[in-house]
């Protein structure tokens, strides 16, 4: 166990340290997501009657685009620095690399989401600082990052990676995004907790399946 988790934590530690030094991922993604939220606010001008319909969609559109940028940078930075092969040479199984990258991508996304939520809450007058929403965020972000990490590794070796990643990636995460929008709407409405539980279970199952599948397939994505 230790042989597995120490290198996983080491990769995540290295990514977090690099991000603290460069602020390359979180800063640019955060600015993008904030601009998206503000533009949506002025475009839609939500009223108390429409907020329940509009807010969940806007929130998850902003998170989705922000998340796809995080995922894109996950392996591009390794590739640009020429260090991806250094990772591949390490005497660890490929799923160690996957989990290390998954954890750092997941944490970067959570940081961006945590920074956007208060702004969104004020602009859309939506009570988003809610423990139930925390569950929605964590499970959806984990599912999103599990698929994103895999496809980021696939697209990093392609020439048009900026186009390839969304084309490959978005169709795969549509189910978990639908679940996230539905669950967020329930949290905002204060509607049936049972239905919320069903959506959360769906998101949890999605994350569990794709974390497992992606870890198994990850080794094939890195080979030349």
């Amino acid at each position, binding site marked *: 166990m230790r*042989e597995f988790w*120490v*290198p996983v934590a*080491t*990769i995540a530690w*290295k990514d977090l*340290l*690099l991000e603290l*030094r*460069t602020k390359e991922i979180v800063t640019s993604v955060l600015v993008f997501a904030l601009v998206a939220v503000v533009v949506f606010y002025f475009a839609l001008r939500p009223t108390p009657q429409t907020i329940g319909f509009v807010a969940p969609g806007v929130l998850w559109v902003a998170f989705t685009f922000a998340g796809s940028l995080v995922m894109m940078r996950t392996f591009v930075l390794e590739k640009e*620095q*020429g*260090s991806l*092969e*250094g*990772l*591949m*040479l*390490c*005497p*660890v*199984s*490929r799923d160690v690399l996957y989990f290390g990258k998954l954890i750092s991508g997941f944490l970067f996304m959570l940081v961006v989401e945590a920074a956007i939520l208060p702004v969104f809450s004020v602009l859309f007058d939506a009570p988003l600082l809610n423990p139930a929403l925390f569950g929605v965020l964590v499970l959806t972000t984990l599912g999103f990052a599990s698929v994103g990490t895999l496809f980021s590794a696939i697209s990093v070796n392609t020439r048009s990676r900026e186009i390839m990643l969304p084309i490959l990636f978005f169709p795969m995460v549509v189910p978990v995004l639908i679940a996230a929008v539905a669950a967020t709407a329930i949290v905002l409405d204060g509607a049936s907790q049972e239905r919320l539980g069903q959506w959360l279970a769906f998101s949890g199952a999605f994350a569990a399946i794709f974390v497992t599948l992606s870890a198994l397939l990850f080794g094939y994505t890195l*080979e*030349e």
Partner: protein
Amino acid sequence: MPPMALAPQHDASPSPYAIETKGLVKRYGRTSALRGVDLAVPWGECLALLGANGSGKTTLIRALAALVRPTEGEVRIAGRDPFKGAPGLRRLLGVVTHQPFLYQDLTAYENLLFYGRMYGISDQEDRIQQISGLLRVEAHLHRKVRTLSHGTQQRLSLARALLHDPPILLLDEPETGLDQEAQQILERLLKDRPPGRTVVLTTHSLEQGLAVGSRVALLDRGRIVYQEQRDLLDAGGLRARYAHLVGATP
């Protein structure tokens, strides 16, 4: 100079050869980078691999390091296939390529610490001090890699490759960018290597190949066209042949 690295561990190897390739072919689309390379490098040998640009040296090193999967043929490291499971097999390899595999925004020390943890080195602190002393990079340990000269980065890359004390070194033109002192350190590292440490070194410098190699091979358009033990080869004939190969005057 601090003592050389610990004795390489390869006792468990079932093969008398550290490295073997059979009919190794690598194609990129219609271009063949390797066209049937057969190599057998016994434990403890230093093979100097020479060839012109585009002869396939880098691809061969990358295939030996399991960074590219061969189109045909097979690679064996310590008698085992590096592409089939067994990530621990990569622990046997120390690799230096044209890329230093260093993170530019981490310090030299943080980079070595990162690789130390990834390789599961127990006495990381001592080992980093030992290896940085060996390659004379102690003064740069707490500087970010991006602030270091190319030559110092190349020294650090060597330190990274030697950190886990691998019994097999794969060095792709490691002298590139090194100053004279660093070249001497490298040459000493290769000449005074512990018994059993195997080296495959690609170089453009025939003189360096002759100085450090216990066997010299020429690679031409993806094929080994010449190989001979250093003690047995005709240096004059080899110089003429290599000059012809790279299009230079002998």
